[in-house]
């Protein structure tokens, strides 16, 4: 009796399992039997984001109506170093996905992404891509992606924290960025940064600055600091690349970092991820070095009002250089994507407002994007445009001015100077260089008192040189 009951339960359980999973697998991800060309879109929003999914579905329907030979399949993928390898191994990458500015070179060398030069030429887009961004996507004269938008590194300041400590002047109940004589009151040199950080750390629970150290982001930001101390990290001599990480200027930059850590003025930890800045900038640190393309995260994931923040150019170390590391967030195409699929995806860019054209579809989509962001209460900031053709720029700028929702007084110090200060990444083995610099910064953070910046950078230099020798 009991035995048979067990059996019934077992059978029931089995049937449930198989029906449930049956539905899931053969319904959910199944791709149907149509012979349409499938386009798997990795930058499709996560299903939890209902409004964005709605917007993309609208775009998808319109696109499929106009181009019945294609089928758009949303397959959201957030790029990460940990997942890209397994996903490539398992052939589960979408045809197009978004990655970080730092990644295309490595992705290309690993054979994960494909060259799309000929199709860009076909579309006439090659010459419309912003030059610096094109450079970061070009290897051996082949272009490996399309920029989404550009970014420059700048200094994000919590004006409330600084103002409350008397580090910014107050006017009509608001903290302002300039003194009465018009000179900047915000930190403009690395010495300023140190002093301001000391005050913040002494007077509040917060630390002075957020400095990231891991995932290549430490090296990425450090290279910008080093430039502003006057360093050049890679030089070409007799047609051969030479590592130049241990110049006096670079050592000065690392020495500055040593002092910051020694005095415990930076956000703590050894492996500090860039992703953590939005949660830190509220009350945990006063300042952070951040890319201009993701400032809105301060509000959306850090819950800090944009009116409590200001974005200013990178400070200088040697009194002359104010460079801002400049690059782009690219869309890249999986190596298994066919020409026809790349064509389809580039056509789809019109429908989502990412193409350089000024036809109605593209403009409407840009407008729609802004509106949806507004409805979601997302702050809208100026963008560094990925395309440089004049007709596009004109329309895009007009739209931007219409929709920008932050007080530009606090953001124009950066956005009005970026064209003057912008500086592309170092040209060769850039990601490896960042990784090597990450290591140097991490060892410095481990033992700030006893660390020797010169010798750390010498070690880093010889590591980089070895790699350059292999490539030369």
């Amino acid at each position, binding site marked *: 009796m009991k035995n048979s009951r067990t059996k019934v339960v077992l059978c029931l359980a089995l049937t449930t399992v198989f029906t449930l999973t049956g539905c899931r697998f053969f319904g959910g991800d199944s791709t149907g039997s149509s012979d349409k060309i499938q386009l798997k879109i990795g930058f499709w929003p996560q299903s939890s984001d209902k409004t964005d999914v709605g917007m993309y579905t609208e775009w998808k329907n319109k696109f499929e109506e106009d181009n019945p030979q294609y089928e758009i399949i949303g397959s959201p993928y957030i790029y990460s*170093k*940990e997942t890209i*390898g*397994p996903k490539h191994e398992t052939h589960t990458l979408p045809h197009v996905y978004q990655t970080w500015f730092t990644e295309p*070179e*490595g992705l290309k*060398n*690993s054979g994960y992404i494909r060259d799309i030069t000929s199709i860009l030429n076909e579309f006439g887009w090659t010459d419309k891509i912003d030059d610096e961004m094109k450079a970061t996507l070009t290897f051996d004269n082949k272009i490996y992606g399309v920029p989404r938008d550009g970014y420059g590194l700048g200094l994000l300041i919590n004006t409330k924290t600084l103002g409350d400590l008397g580090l910014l002047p107050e006017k009509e109940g608001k903290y302002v960025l300039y003194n009465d004589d018009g000179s900047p009151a915000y930190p403009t040199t690395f010495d300023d940064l140190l002093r301001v950080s000391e005050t913040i750390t002494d007077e509040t*629970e917060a*630390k002075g600055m957020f400095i990231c150290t*891991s*995932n290549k982001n430490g090296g990425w930001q450090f290279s910008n600091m080093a430039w502003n101390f006057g360093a050049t990290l890679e030089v070409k001599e007799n047609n051969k690349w030479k590592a130049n990480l241990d110049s006096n200027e670079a050592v000065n930059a690392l020495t500055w970092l040593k002092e910051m850590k020694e005095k*415990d003025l930076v*956000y*703590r*930890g*050894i*492996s500090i*991820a860039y992703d953590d800045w939005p949660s830190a900038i509220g009350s*945990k640190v006063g300042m952070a070095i951040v890319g201009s393309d993701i400032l809105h995260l301060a509000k959306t994931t850090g819950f800090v009002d944009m009116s409590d923040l200001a974005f200013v150019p990178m400070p200088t170390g040697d009194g002359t250089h104010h460079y801002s590391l400049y690059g782009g967030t690219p869309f890249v195409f999986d190596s298994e994507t066919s020409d026809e699929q790349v064509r389809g995806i580039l056509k789809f860019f019109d429908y989502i407002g990412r193409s350089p054209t000024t036809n109605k579809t593209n403009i409407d989509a840009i407008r729609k994007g802004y509106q949806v962001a507004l409805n979601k209460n997302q702050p809208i900031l100026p963008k560094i445009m990925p395309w440089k053709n004049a007709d596009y720029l004109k329309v895009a700028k007009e739209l931007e001015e219409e929709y920008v929702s932050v007080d530009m007084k606090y953001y124009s110090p950066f956005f009005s100077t970026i064209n003057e200060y912008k500086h592309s990444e170092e040209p060769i*083995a850039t*990601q*490896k260089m960042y990784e090597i610099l*990450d290591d140097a910064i*991490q060892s410095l*953070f*481990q033992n700030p008192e006893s660390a020797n910046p010169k010798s750390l950078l010498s070690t880093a230099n010889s590591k980089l040189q*070895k*790699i350059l020798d*292999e490539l030369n």
Partner: protein
Amino acid sequence: MALPLLLFVFFVWYPISFNVVLSFFNNEKFESFVGFNNYIAIFQDQDFLDALRNTFLYIFWSLIIGFLVPLILGFILSEAFHAKGFFRIAIYLPCMISGMAVVFLFKSMFGDNSWDVINVILIRWFGMKDGVEWTKDYHILIPVIVFAMTWRGAGGTALIYLSNFQQIDDAIYEAARIDGASPTQRFTKLTIPMMKTTIFMLLILQVIAVFQVFYEPMVIAGVDNNNAISLMLLSYSFAFVKKDSFERLQYSKSAATSVVLALIILAFTLLYFGLTRYFEKRAEAKSEGKL
């Protein structure tokens, strides 16, 4: 009948053999045989040496924290007379939480900054100035990770000890009591010797388990923090994260790392089986002798 075997082939033996063979080849396409070069390469790799050091540090700390705590707990539980049921459930409760949730929980508590809860306690109650930067030093980080593992595992192990303590015949204690042995004497002369087998078995099993520490350091410290990386994590990292100077993943090095770790575990396991057999034989010999 063949089906279960097929599963073992597919899920266990094939992958392991694949890795053993791969560890002697230059890449995952098996292009050329390189002998022991991958092994030489990993032993010259600082990451591997760090991971090797850490793996033994994990063992060391788990012997101190992870081994003693459940033993003591098991003993006290067996002697406790009041609120037995409550104590057992309370001690066992953390075992019910999945390992992943436990690591995230400990990551949240043991943050580096002065506003993370453990540091708040250290600052407010113990007068420390800024709290501890846990991830900075492997002498601090590894004990924290072992603490997290022990926190989750101790209850289950303590219950095993408990049942073994309870199996000890009360008549033996009674006899000793009549002979006038003090509680301390009874504990050292009777309890401990009788528990020796259990203690030893659980000890070895624990050591084997600790060699496999993997996602704890991955979540708490990050894949690239050499203060916590274990051999297991490094092997994973070679295969899926860490690239060489040509931006290629290093499957062969991953395989070699796996093989080294497997050999270490194998040695411990053989020791375990050997000693189990030894203890059994001795027990048999004893009971036969008595007869």
